[in-house]
């Protein structure tokens, strides 16, 4: 039963990633694309956690944590860039 659920949820996350990708290309303005990227990194953490459950291994935890931290920092840096046109003030 668990393997079926993991497959189903992986499909759901994959569909969400495609929807995000559509917003990334179609988004009328820069903040829309930024929001799409921000959602995409959270969804990729979800995929990595699902892979960990699928393979029954806790090794993927570090990768998920690293993506979470780098994703937040890159969102903050891009926001700063759009706000001021400069990352280091």
């Amino acid at each position, binding site marked *: 039963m668990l393997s079926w659920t993991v497959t189903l949820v992986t499909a*759901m996350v994959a569909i969400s990633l495609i929807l995000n990708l559509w917003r990334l290309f179609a988004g009328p303005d820069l*903040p829309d694309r930024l*929001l799409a990227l921000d959602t995409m990194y959270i969804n990729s953490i979800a995929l990595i956690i699902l892979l960990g459950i699928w393979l029954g291994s806790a090794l993927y935890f570090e990768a998920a944590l690293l993506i979470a931290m780098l994703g937040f920092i890159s969102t903050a840096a891009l926001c700063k860039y759009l706000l001021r046109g400069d990352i280091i003030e």
Partner: protein
Amino acid sequence: MNFLLELIVSIFLLIGGVFILVGSIGLVRLPDFFMRLHAPTKATTLGMGGLLIASMILFTVREPGISVHELLITLFLFITAPVSAHMMAKTALHQKNKMIERTTGQHLIARARQQKAPEVKPSLND
């Protein structure tokens, strides 16, 4: 016992997946940036919470000892999601993104962009 464990983990996984999907559907469906911002910040963050709780339960029962390190990612996401949402809303205000016309209180946008207080006190403003 094993069936019960799989049932609980499956329920949490499904809750997580549904919320992540709802977040992305909102990102595509809603008409302007400020409305789109609501879906990923709230729904996707809660969806991640569901997935990580499922992973936590599964690894605690399957492997010797308790496994709570997924809590770290959950906490990190719950702390950073509102911060990045605030920064993106700020960016959109600065970039003069339009809100759809029926949004109320649009006279405040110009003051908000300059980080000034509103001209009239909102309690007096009907």
